[in-house]
């Protein structure tokens, strides 16, 4: 399987405290790879490191062979990586349409951008209904869809998603995961961080478990009993020392 994303021995620290203590993993092209783990494991730190918002202290992050470490977030987006951040960071005082335009900030093909916006409206009809509404007035689920659509506007080769289910009603979560599967069928490589292990294992082709800044397990769904995965994803094997 050809790897889209290869992460090797990444260490990211806040001051003296290492949140990632040498993480290595890879995400296969055209697949959904999922990263599971309890709170504080360093999942978001990893996502931010890939997207360039945090600078790893050591290690390498390669996208189809080219190094991303050291590039600015803007350059990384230009290289074809888009992150749907945790907590759906939309631009609340900007309209839905402007949010989508912001996602296409680096593109110079304005005709194609307009066409892509129409495609997003076709995929997310509720965004079309609310296109002139301010993003801050949307519901949580709608904001999450907007965040996904905005990330897609950059036409990424790799879509990173950080906890897309966080704080959403179960029915909305199901919808979001439906979209994830659909995007993947259309050929988008997805690297997903999720706390909801049950849902994640339903869509993922491959998954990793992470605890306290380290990858502790790598496998395909089915290799480990689901309740064991869930237990470890929520609690970790090594209980955090108090």
């Amino acid at each position, binding site marked *: 399987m050809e790897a889209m994303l290869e992460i090797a021995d990444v260490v990211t620290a*806040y*001051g*003296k*405290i290492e*949140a990632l203590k040498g993480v290595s993993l890879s995400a296969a092209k055209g697949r959904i790879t999922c990263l599971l*783990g309890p*709170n*504080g*494991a*360093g*999942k*978001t*730190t*990893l*996502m*931010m490191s890939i997207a360039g918002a945090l600078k790893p202290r050591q290690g390498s992050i390669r996208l189809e062979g080219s190094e991303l470490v050291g590039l600015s977030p803007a350059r990384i987006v230009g290289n074809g990586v888009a992150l749907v951040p*945790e907590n759906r960071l939309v631009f609340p005082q900007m309209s839905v349409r402007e949010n989508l335009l912001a996602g296409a900030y680096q593109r110079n093909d304005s005709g194609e951008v307009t066409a892509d916006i129409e495609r997003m409206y076709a995929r997310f009809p509720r965004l079309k209904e609310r296109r002139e509404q301010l993003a801050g007035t949307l519901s949580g689920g709608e904001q999450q869809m907007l965040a996904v659509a905005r990330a897609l506007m950059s036409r990424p080769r790799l879509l990173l998603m*950080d906890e897309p289910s966080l704080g959403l009603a179960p029915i909305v979560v199901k919808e979001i995961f439906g979209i994830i599967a659909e995007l993947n069928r259309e050929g988008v490589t997805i690297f997903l*961080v999720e706390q909801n292990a049950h849902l994640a294992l339903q869509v993922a082709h491959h998954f990793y478990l992470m605890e306290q800044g380290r990858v502790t397990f790598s496998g395909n769904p089915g290799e480990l009993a689901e309740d064991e995965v869930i237990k470890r994803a929520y609690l970790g094997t090594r209980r*955090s*020392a*108090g």
Partner: protein
Amino acid sequence: MDDHLIGIVSNIGVISFVALSAYLLLLTGEISFGQQAFFAIGAYTSGIVTAMWQLPFALGLGAGAATGAAAALLVGLPTLRLHGLQFAIATLAFAEAVRILFELFRYQIVRDGELVGPNGIEGFRNIRYIFENDVSATEFMLIIYGLLGATLFGLFLLERSRLGTAFRMIGEDDLLAATQGVAVVPVKLTAACLAGTIAGLGGGLYAHLTTYVEPAIFDVMLGVHSLAYGLIGGLGTAFGPLLGVVIDIGLLESTRWFAGYRMIVFGGLVAVLLIVRPRGLLDEQLVHRIRRAVRRRPRPSPANDTVLGKELS
């Protein structure tokens, strides 16, 4: 010590009062561009008490501190619900208004065949208490540092008290502090009044140190300087602002050979310092580490460190 050095050291002591005043408000999370107003009010009041009414010096200082506190209470009430820039600009507007009021303020009486008292933009001359009562420059310096020491001591006790904790809590997040049972309004008013008292006291000392005050002294420059001291020296303890004053005046004195380029050198140094240490030399972390080293406590376990760090996921 020669007279010039005594003058500089006294100056450092006096300016420290305004710096401490601004620092106290910074603790509660508010930036004031206006502490120089209370300094001015204290200076004029104490000058009037000693030079015009010919009452004892201590009474003058007390009156300066009291009017500083009263004025701070007066401004504190309407500006309580303001935050951040709005609070900063409201205090700036107040202070500038006070300065202009002093430009318009004329109250003079005849003493020894000469007019004494505030004379508008000309200022208030001949606050000659230390000359009339033969207080030497060294003695006056000791008075300044005695009072400064007492104020610092008070602030240290305050920072260890419940009230001090409430200050810092409000500084971090006043909403959260309120949910923890901190009565935000009275605590903030107390902070404002204490800050006003300290500035007023310093003003009284300043007026008697220089023997003259004029409104131009109390413009925004002084306000922003006193704010800058806390940030240059560090916000971790009350020593920070003091260190800031010492650095400022000390650095200015030592960059004297740059003559005409002094401010260029000094401004650049401060900017670079803030890049390296955005919360000042003695910031909270350093103070925390020093305290820990002094107490020789065992290092907390790594698990505790993780809790202190900002983990994202």
